[in-house]
């Protein structure tokens, strides 16, 4: 063991863990040992200096990292606060949106119901309007007592059908008839009973006509049928069927039988007896007059008028002048 005295009198023990040297070491050997020890000390000093630099570097690095971590942590904290604020704001917005959505849905339900109501109201008003127009139109063109077409409609219809018949070269039949002794019937049973008879005849006509035919109440107890695309012979047959059918009607008023009625009918046909509605009606009317004159309850066609002229001296002069058959 070697003791070295330093200037400040402190004592270092160097090579404490060095095995004790043999006492017989020479001066050279001791110097060598000392040199080795000095080298060792130098090495240790360098290592110490290295370690101190390493420690400084590591400490500085660690300090940087800590600072960075602190800064990052602060940033994260700030970001977290911001995000939480945003989340809260978003939740408030979502709640407001949900409330608005509910309100809109409720409003939508009301508007949808109102729309459906308005559509039904519009449809109701339109259908009602159409129905009322139809009723009013019927009132304009139909006789209220019998439900048959009225004289105004007949005039328009007849002109249209005559034009069509002319274009298509088709015949057209016209039947005019009235109820025999209707005035006497009214005087006997009263006007209400007379109305019942007229209504019954109207119902019978409605049931008797074909699709393209029309029946109308021409005047008081006078009726008229227009039969498109029907020749004189067929029109006469139809007139006979009407005469027979009306004669068979069972009429009663207030549960009291009114007895039977008869009708007299005049028949005319386009084109042979007239080319206009007015002509055709007038000729059929003359035939009707003849049927009355011949004793009623019968059919007279315009074709027979020439022959009958001789047999009926009572034919009114004005009619003879108008229709000089």
């Amino acid at each position, binding site marked *: 063991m070697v003791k070295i005295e330093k200037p400040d009198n402190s004592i270092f023990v160097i090579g404490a863990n060095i095995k004790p040297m043999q006492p017989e070491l020479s001066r050279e050997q001791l110097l060598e040992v000392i040199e080795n020890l000095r080298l060792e000390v130098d090495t240790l000093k360098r290592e110490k200096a290295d370690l101190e630099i390493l420690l400084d570097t590591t400490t500085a690095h660690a300090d940087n990292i800590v600072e960075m971590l602190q800064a990052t942590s602060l940033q994260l904290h700030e970001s977290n606060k911001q995000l939480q604020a945003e989340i809260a704001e978003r939740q408030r917005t979502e709640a407001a949106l949900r409330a608005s959505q509910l309100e809109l849905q409720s409003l939508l339900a009301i508007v949808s119901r109102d729309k459906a*109501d308005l559509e039904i*109201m519009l449809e109701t*008003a339109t*259908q009602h309007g159409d*129905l*009322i127009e139809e*009723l009013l139109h019927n009132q304009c063109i139909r006789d209220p007592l019998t439900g048959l077409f009225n004289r105004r409609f007949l005039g328009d219809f007849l002109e249209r059908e005559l034009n069509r018949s002319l274009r298509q070269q088709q015949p057209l039949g016209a039947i005019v008839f009235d109820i025999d002794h209707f005035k006497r019937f009214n005087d006997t049973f009263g006007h209400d009973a007379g109305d019942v008879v007229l209504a019954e005849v109207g119902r019978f006509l409605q049931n008797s006509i074909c699709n393209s035919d029309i029946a109308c109440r021409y005047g008081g107890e006078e009726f008229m049928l227009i039969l498109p695309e029907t020749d004189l012979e067929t029109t006469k047959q139809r007139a006979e069927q009407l005469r027979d059918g009306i004669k068979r009607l069972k009429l009663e008023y207030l549960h009291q039988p009114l007895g039977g009625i008869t009708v007299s009918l005049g028949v005319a046909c386009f084109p042979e007896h007239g080319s206009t509605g007015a002509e055709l009606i007038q000729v059929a009317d003359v035939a009707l007059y003849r049927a009355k004159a011949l004793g009623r309850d019968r059919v007279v066609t315009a074709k027979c008028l020439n022959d009958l002229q001789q047999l009926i001296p009572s034919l009114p002069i004005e009619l003879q002048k108008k229709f000089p058959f």
Partner: protein
Amino acid sequence: MEIRTQNYSIYYDKLTETAIFNGSLRLSGMEEYDPIVQLLNQVADTQPSTITLNLRELEFLNSSGINILSKFVIKVRQIGNIHMVVIGSKEVPWQGKSLKNLQRLMPSLDLVLE
């Protein structure tokens, strides 16, 4: 409550909770129907358990008239707790078709066509 004119009359019988219509309603536009609307609204505002509209003797009703009936039915439906009955006649031509549409506005409405 009653409205009586030369052409029509409407009388509300509180005892039977029935508004009885008579005659022909052919007023021009919604303004002229206002007194009738007022009468019907007064009836609805008292919130009776039942409201019956007896239209059997109402011979004619124009489009404005059917509109006020439609609106009244909607009003009664919206009030919610009133049973509504409409009585019509098969003999009056417009009633069969038009009154059935009122049921579309208020499915619980009882329509009686006599």
